[in-house]
């Protein structure tokens, strides 16, 4: 193992705990973003829904993780192709 590899491993070891925490904080922000994105379907008026609509195809996979994280086994939205 070269010095560079060693440094990389060392950094990865020390980063491990922080990585989780930072990802969790970021995920919380993402969750809020999702809520805003789908707010129209949940009955909240969204002035930019025309634009967010375009994002749906890119968000499908993440959407599935999101609603599971939010404690809903099945997709809460009817007429929306998820599980």
């Amino acid at each position, binding site marked *: 193992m070269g010095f560079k590899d060693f*440094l990389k491993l060392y*950094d990865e*070891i020390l980063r*491990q705990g*922080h990585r989780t*925490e*930072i*990802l969790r904080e970021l995920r919380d922000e993402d969750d809020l973003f999702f809520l805003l994105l789908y707010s129209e379907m949940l009955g909240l008026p969204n002035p930019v829904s025309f634009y967010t609509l375009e994002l749906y195809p890119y968000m499908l996979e993440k959407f599935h993780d999101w609603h599971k994280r939010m404690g809903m086994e099945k997709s809460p939205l009817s007429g929306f192709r998820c599980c």
Partner: protein
Amino acid sequence: MNAILVAVIGMFVFFMGYKYYSKFVAERIYRLDPDYQTPAHRYKDGVDFVPTNKWVLWGHHFTSVAGAAPIVGPAIAVYWGWLPAFLWVVLGTVFAAGVHDFGALVLSVRNKGQSVGTLANKIIGQRAKILFLFIILILVLMVNAVFAWVISNLFITFPSAVLSVFIQIPLALWIGHLVYKKRGGMLLPSLFALAAMYVSAIVASKVPALQIDLPRYFGGEENIVAFGLNGVAFSFFVWIVILMVYVYIASTLPVWKLLQPRDYINSHQLIVGLAILYLGLFFSNPSISAPATNASPDVPWFPLLFITIACGAISGFHGLVASGTSSKQLNKETDARFVGYLGAVGEGLLALAAIIAVVTFFSDEASFLGAYSSFGAAGEGGLGYFVQGAGQLATGIFIPADIATTIVAIIVVSFAATTLDTSVRLMRYIISELGQEYKIKPLTKMHVATSIAVVSSAALVLLPEGPQGFGSGGYVLWPLFGTSNQLLAGITLLLITLWLKRQGRNYLITLIPMIFLMFMTVWAMIQQVFFQWSGLGEGHEMNLLLFLLGSIILAFALWILLEAIAGLRRKGTEDN
């Protein structure tokens, strides 16, 4: 006796323990399966459940569990001579801590990565969960009191370390901001922070004006400052207040802001500390001046030795880390041996180094016995002797003793401060959880819970008085801290034992350490509670606080034993 020989013997036993005993446990008892789908794969979410390289996971596990406790315990326990402490650290690590940490990891991996608390509920029942919650509560309370005392004590003994410790706070905040907001790397800024701390340590150890020496400012022991307290006692009071205000703020901030960047810097410090100790040892080749056993101790070693050294021989806290985070990131089940068992060995190595630093520090046996004249004196001075001993070892690698002493003091204070932060935060969570459980709404509020945590911890560290008066009483809490840590280990070992029994496997390897621990705890508590703190024994005065705390711990230990008997009998009939 040559200290290198002792270190090498210790390392050899650790090595044999890992190579043979842990292999036997992994293959025959825990029966690790390389094809088992670990929670990291099954519930992979990229955040908590992430399959991780075993070296990375081991490093993270080790840096999470290693702290000031495996240094303080051995530094006090060498009072009974170096041999009992050495044997307990080495054999405890191999036969108790190793299987405990390793077992907690395996148990959690086999149960969806759940933590010990949840598993207590699942394996034993609701009662066990409440018992578990109360044991943790008493453990974190002890940790808060003991570590606040440790830090204040070091600040008073080594004033040159104060500045660098306080410099670390803004540096950590800066790193937190850099990493979280700017998405920068951590390695370079944290190395810079470390360098800044050590440069300030070097300067402070040479320039007395930069040494924040409160006892000197308050006129020393002769001067009565306020409330009838002399300069030293008043300094202690001031440090405790400052620390408590600090932990209040630190434990209510988001973790990435201060706690985690500080952890990161401290991980470098752990490496620096171990390097100073072991390189210093091998280059300076000192001999042990302390006696192998203390011929006339004022307090018998049995059973107090086993609760004076908790971390370093066996510690329940490791089970929390193993089942809380490490189990969710284990890539292959067979990696559990490497991460869990070797994590315990790492802690054992730190405790071994602590023993060696203290027992090589004194010029001869008489001066050792003079410094360690009583168990009380060992409690008060032990950590100071470790710091100076480590400073002396560092001269072997050409670091001047005064600078090395300051740096080692900083390392120990940093470890203790991070432990204090985490522990106050944990206490806040537990108080909130109890508030939810018993529907007491105010307790669930962050500031109410934190205030209760901070005020009760401050009261606990300030109340007991040692022989030197106010401020020197913290060390009497140390055995209580050790005991509550052992109780936690006991309950984890009980869970592993019951699990093994349900699988129809040999469970003696965890049952024996568990019974041993509980026996020592019960014995020590009976001795202390009934003969010392109750005031009934000869020459002892009643100490209500310690009497109450000791009684609670004793009751918990008996409770665990009863649960164990009930669990083993119940399952015994079901299995047949």
